[in-house]
């Protein structure tokens, strides 16, 4: 049928060069006469209102690219004609109803083209959304996505599985300098989104980095230097003042020091640490062992801390800049507790929760706290710390009251521990007045029940008072923990150019952290209001990058663009759950008994053993994409309205960034199996967008044709013939497919370097390894038999190699040294002598293969086998050169 079709002869017959045409070519080449310059006729075409010059034969897309107009493409491969599968390069041409695609449409004189109209962006956006609706892959794993600081979680867990705690901590420190501190105080928003949860239970991510961090701290205590995440830059000669030594300030100082700047941190209190030291009790975060140990890593980088020096009291911003600091980072945090705003608030016994904690963390019992009835108002971490510390200080009765539901508490996961320790909790009640006696002493608090109304902007249901439900809790002390704001009184003096926002925060850009005053940056709680430690550290790190860019003289607007693209991690779709994994429940940290811990400030969680820590990390599914950073799909997804509008955290919801607009088309999608059988190219078909570039490049440029479209309809996939391993194709390992792939579906495989063990007895001295080695690590020795042979067709040899990788007897031999014994156990009789004449004589008998293997290993021990120039005079192996008859199945294929 179609086979019988006659094609034009020219298409089939290769161009043969005869002697005559060679002679003509020769003459052409030898001619020295000046050639007339080749000029392609040009014309003018209007694109986006610009009059541009195009050459005859160019497509609209080529003209655009020549003039720096970016038209998005996914399937376009510059070396090949337009393909038209992705439909991203649509443009509008005046006078045409439907927009043509610019990669296939020739530009014509006088054409009027627009590349960025609303309609085009809509079509492109729909296309991207459609792609994402069947793109069963993550840019970043959801855990990393949800982490405010975007820690490389799969990365450090991988290091953990190898027991490489220093590497693990180093990876962690790339985004957060304090793995052990965060391992104790982080609310772990990452774990809520862990995909392992779809198998059985989320990974204990926080406990895992805590273990790694603790190992580093132990080593540090023994005198080892802490790991540094990046190469320390040469001293820049610039000086930076950081005001505040809390998590934000110290994180900023840490990364600025690595960037080569001289950093001085100013601290109001007698010791550095900010809220970490004065806001979080000892039982959650040991000060000496953990906090000071991790801060030590910053001091090792040259960060200096000046304590007992407060902004506004001891110095002003003016002073710092006059002292020659090139840049000032304000990270003073939030220390002013909010007021209740109800009558009786000034009664004796109403205490600021932070003030209370501050005394407690200094190791002092708060005056006359024992035996008192205490009411704690609030639902955040501070309220929890107040309640649990009160229990430890012997309060007779501790009651925590929160106005919303328990699941809406920022510190919800700590509630059960608090209850275990003996405190009470009351939800959906808000104070209406503090009851005092005649001496203005607190005797109780009157509360009103709250009903939950419609969800507010934080996504939580808004509490609404219910009339007539007032009740009184009798107490002696009221601890207020209903949030904090920053102290901004220092703005009045020596801080010209800085200002406060409407809701009393220090005004600064969300991306560049620049304030109204050049060189002065604001970051952390003082900018965004009281938040979590991890959020604060993320602020500090990002501010450090901005300050570094400023000090290097970069354009801050450009930094904003770059950071906006680099920082947000769009979440594209919820993907099908894992089902095939073997279930292995989470390794939990155990806690001390409540009766023991409620009277002690000792850290109450019992850390992992090394085996547990490694096993827990091994549960990670490693759902990450290696192509992040150079994926066109992701870049365009961000550009076409799928990006976060700002980097601001969602108001109210403490941990979540606003995510991408929801995909309208979520529906059936494909989950394909990864093919990592090939030595150099990793195939992840779930990330394939069917653009066909690999297929076209492989067929048209390389000539190997390893890929093509398979199946039809929605199930179409660009893959290898019959979806088989890439090893079964005529792949020449050139890597062009991975190079052209716009996503992470085809990637150069990350190579784990191992020491290779050469089995000389099986070497047939074909020399292919010598030909293929890109770094000349293998060379022909003087006695190498094949070195005389002409190897002018290396591609065919490579194809022979790929053929050899199929499951053949040869593969079995390579994989299993005792293959013969096994085969015979199964009742297979193999005429070894006939099949594989290159085998050494020892194997042809029925003697077991192990003996041979051991003998072989012996050779390596002697250190002989490092070079392949080994043919002559090496005993039995030397005779393996019998491949010269090429009578073996593998030997025969190459020729």
């Amino acid at each position: 049928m179609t086979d019988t079709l006659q094609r034009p002869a020219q298409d089939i017959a290769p161009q043969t060069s005869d002697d005559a045409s060679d002679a003509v070519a020769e003459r052409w080449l030898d001619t020295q006469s000046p050639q007339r310059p080749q000029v392609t006729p040009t014309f003018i075409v209007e694109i986006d209102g610009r009059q541009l010059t195009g050459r005859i034969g160019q497509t609209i897309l080529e003209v655009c690219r020549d003039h720096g107009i970016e038209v998005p493409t996914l399937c376009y491969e510059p070396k090949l004609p337009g393909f038209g599968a992705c439909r991203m390069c649509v443009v509008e041409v005046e006078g045409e109803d439907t927009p043509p695609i610019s990669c296939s449409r020739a530009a014509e004189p006088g054409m009027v083209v627009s590349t960025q109209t609303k309609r085009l962006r809509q079509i492109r956006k729909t296309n991207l959304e459609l792609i994402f609706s069947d793109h069963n892959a993550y840019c970043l794993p959801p855990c990393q996505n949800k982490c405010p600081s975007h820690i490389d979680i799969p990365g450090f867990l991988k290091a953990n599985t190898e027991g490489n705690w220093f590497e693990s901590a180093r990876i962690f420190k790339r985004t957060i300098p304090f793995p052990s501190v965060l391992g104790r105080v982080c609310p772990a928003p990452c774990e809520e989104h862990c995909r392992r949860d779809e198998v059985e239970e989320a990974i204990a991510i926080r406990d895992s980095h805590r273990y790694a961090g603790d190992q580093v701290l132990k080593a540090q205590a023994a005198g080892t230097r802490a790991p540094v995440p990046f190469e320390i830059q040469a001293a820049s000669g610039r000086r930076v003042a950081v005001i505040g030594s809390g998590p934000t300030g110290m994180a900023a100082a840490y990364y600025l020091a690595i960037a080569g700047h001289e950093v001085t941190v100013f601290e109001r209190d007698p010791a550095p640490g900010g809220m970490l030291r004065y806001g979080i009790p000892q039982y959650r975060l040991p000060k000496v062992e953990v906090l000071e140990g991790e801060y030590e890593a910053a001091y090792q980088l040259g960060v200096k801390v000046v304590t007992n020096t407060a902004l506004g009291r001891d110095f002003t911003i003016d002073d710092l800049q006059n002292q020659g600091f090139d840049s000032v980072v304000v990270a003073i945090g939030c220390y002013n507790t909010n007021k209740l705003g109800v009558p009786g608030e000034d009664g004796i016994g109403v205490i600021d929760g932070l003030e209370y904690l501050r005394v407690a963390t200094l190791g002092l019992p708060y005056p006359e706290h024992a035996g008192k009835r205490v009411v704690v108002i609030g639902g955040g971490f501070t309220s929890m710390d107040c309640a649990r510390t009160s229990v430890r200080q012997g309060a007779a009765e501790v009651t925590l009251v929160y106005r919303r539901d328990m699941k809406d508490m920022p510190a919800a996961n700590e509630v059960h521990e608090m209850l275990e320790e003996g405190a009470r909790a009351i939800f959906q009640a808000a104070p209406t007045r503090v009851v005092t006696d005649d001496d203005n002493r607190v005797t109780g608090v009157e509360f009103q029940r709250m009903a939950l109304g419609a969800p507010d902007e934080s996504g939580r249901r808004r509490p609404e008072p219910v009339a007539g439900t007032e009740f009184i809790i009798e107490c002696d002390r009221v601890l207020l923990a209903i949030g904090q704001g920053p102290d901004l009184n220092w703005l009045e003096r020596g801080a010209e150019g800085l200002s406060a926002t409407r809701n009393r925060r220090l005004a600064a850009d969300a991306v560049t952290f620049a304030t109204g005053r050049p060189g002065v940056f604001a970051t952390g709680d003082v900018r965004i209001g009281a938040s979590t430690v991890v959020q604060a550290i993320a602020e500090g790190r990002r501010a450090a990058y901005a300050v570094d860019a400023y000090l290097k003289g970069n354009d801050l607007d450009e930094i904003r663009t770059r950071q906006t693209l680099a920082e947000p991690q769009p979440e594209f779709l919820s993907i099908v759950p894992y089902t095939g994994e073997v279930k292995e429940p989470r390794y939990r940290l155990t806690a001390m008994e409540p009766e023991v811990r409620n009277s002690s400030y000792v850290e109450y969680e019992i850390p992992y053993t090394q085996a547990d820590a490694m096993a827990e990390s091994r549960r990670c599914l490693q759902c990450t994409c290696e192509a992040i950073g150079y994926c066109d799909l992701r870049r365009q997804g961000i550009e076409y309205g799928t990006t976060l509008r700002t980097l601001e955290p969602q108001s109210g919801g403490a941990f979540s960034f606003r995510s991408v607009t929801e995909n309208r088309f979520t529906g059936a999608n494909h989950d394909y199996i990864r093919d990592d059988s090939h030595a150099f190219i990793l195939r992840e078909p779930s990330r394939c967008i069917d653009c066909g570039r690999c297929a076209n490049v492989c067929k048209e440029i390389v000539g190997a044709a390893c890929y093509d479209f398979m199946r039809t309809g929605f199930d179409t996939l660009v893959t290898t013939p019959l979806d088989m391993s890439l090893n079964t194709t005529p792949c020449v390992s050139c890597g062009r497919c991975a190079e052209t792939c716009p996503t992470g579906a085809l990637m150069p495989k990350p190579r784990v370097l191992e020491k290779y063990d050469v089995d000389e007895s099986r070497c047939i001295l074909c020399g292919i390894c010598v030909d293929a080695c890109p770094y000349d690590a293998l060379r022909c020795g003087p006695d190498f038999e094949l070195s005389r042979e002409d190897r002018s067709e290396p591609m065919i040899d490579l194809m022979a190699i790929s053929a050899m990788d199929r499951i053949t007897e040869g593969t079995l031999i390579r994989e299993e040294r005792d293959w013969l014994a096994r085969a015979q156990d199964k009742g297979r009789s193999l005429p070894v002598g006939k099949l594989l004449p290159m085998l050494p004589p020892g194997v042809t008998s029925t003697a077991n293969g192990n003996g041979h293997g051991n003998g072989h290993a012996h050779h390596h021990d002697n250190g002989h086998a490092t070079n392949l120039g080994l043919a002559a005079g090496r005993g039995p192996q030397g005779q393996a050169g019998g491949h010269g008859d090429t009578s073996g199945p593998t030997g025969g294929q190459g020729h």
Partner: protein
Amino acid sequence: MRVLPGVRNAPSVLLARLDRYDPDAGRQAAEDAGAWRTWRQVGTTSSPQQIIRLVGEAGLRGRGGAGHSTAEKWRAAAEIQAEERYLVANGFEADPGAQLDRTLMERDPHLVLEGVAIAAYAIGARRAYICVKAGAQGVIHRLQAAIEASEEGGLLGPDALGSGFDLDVEVVGVPGGFVVGEETVLLRALENKRAQPEQRPPYPSRKGLWGRPTVVNNVETLAALPWLLANGPAAYAGIGDVAMPGTTLVQVTGAVGTPGIVEVPTGMPIGSIVDELAGGVRKGSRLKAVLVGGPSGSFLPPDQLGVGYSAAALGAHGAVMGSGTVVALDEDICLFDMATLLQRFLSDESCGKTIPCRIGVRRLYEIGARAVAGLARPTDPQLLLDLAADVRDGGMCGLERLAPNSFLSGMTYFGQEFEDHFVRRRCPAGVCTQLGQSALSVQTA
């Protein structure tokens, strides 16, 4: 399929010789019945330019569905400098229910061949391919026999008619599904490449088979040529709709009295075709709608059946001639269910090349399937319209661009029924039983 008598006293351009000779009886029998006369005449006395001019004057437009001017296509191909040109007669007839082209090729193969010879001569193609479905053995055998006989008679082959014009005609059974009906797909399939469309322009008339100028004409278009040239362009232009003159074949099926294929002048109202030629609506049935144009066609309600059967008139009603079929649907049929089914068919038949087709058409189907299952989301009707617009404007070939037709026409003319599915979650026809409250259950309750 039965061939029905056409409009009384109207000229029969395409089916005049049908059953007047035995297709297996050889060339002479066909010639005795009148075949090849036009070719013998124009092949020896007219120049290619003259033929193109005459066809242009007759206003002949393609019958493959899109309705492009045949003469313009020919002229474009003939004007380009090329060492080789091709004529491809598209008899693939992608719509699995349509048998129009097949009827022509099987029962009057010499008519199609004569048309092929004239067209090839007009554009200067020395090679012509008649593409049919790979499995259509009957058609292939008849055409092959006819080609051999014609070559023996000197009508085709080297130095045809002794005029020095070589013409090699070949029947090719092309494997593949619905999408192969698209001309660029057909050409790729002919080249033994994967059956995927390519962006037009460049049109095949500039850059077609193996990169050479290629005219792709539907066999029905070609079959009109002998009559057109024998009777003159004025006679042809006088038939039917002025914008698309001539006659065309329609296959009328479904709830009609006498289903079959009928030749009608273009522009004849669909209602008249059904009532006067196809025996009217079947007894006991009430006409609910007609599906015009096959799987990527549109639904038209009974009160819109005054629309003339021609590309322009149907286009004004959001419909296409498509595969040339008209299916009468009675009240038992749920149009929403049927539209969903058609989306599923088109999605499965997609070659998977472009994103709007591979995923977009699938999502159209899913929107329908959700509603059929009673799981429609409140945003779905708007989503359907938005997606349909983007698929139509962003798509590459006819399959995806026309795919939303059934939904769009349904929403236009049968808004109540579609709203019932989307919003009220009931199926008036009682077909979508998965819906929580079908009409039946409401009645019994």
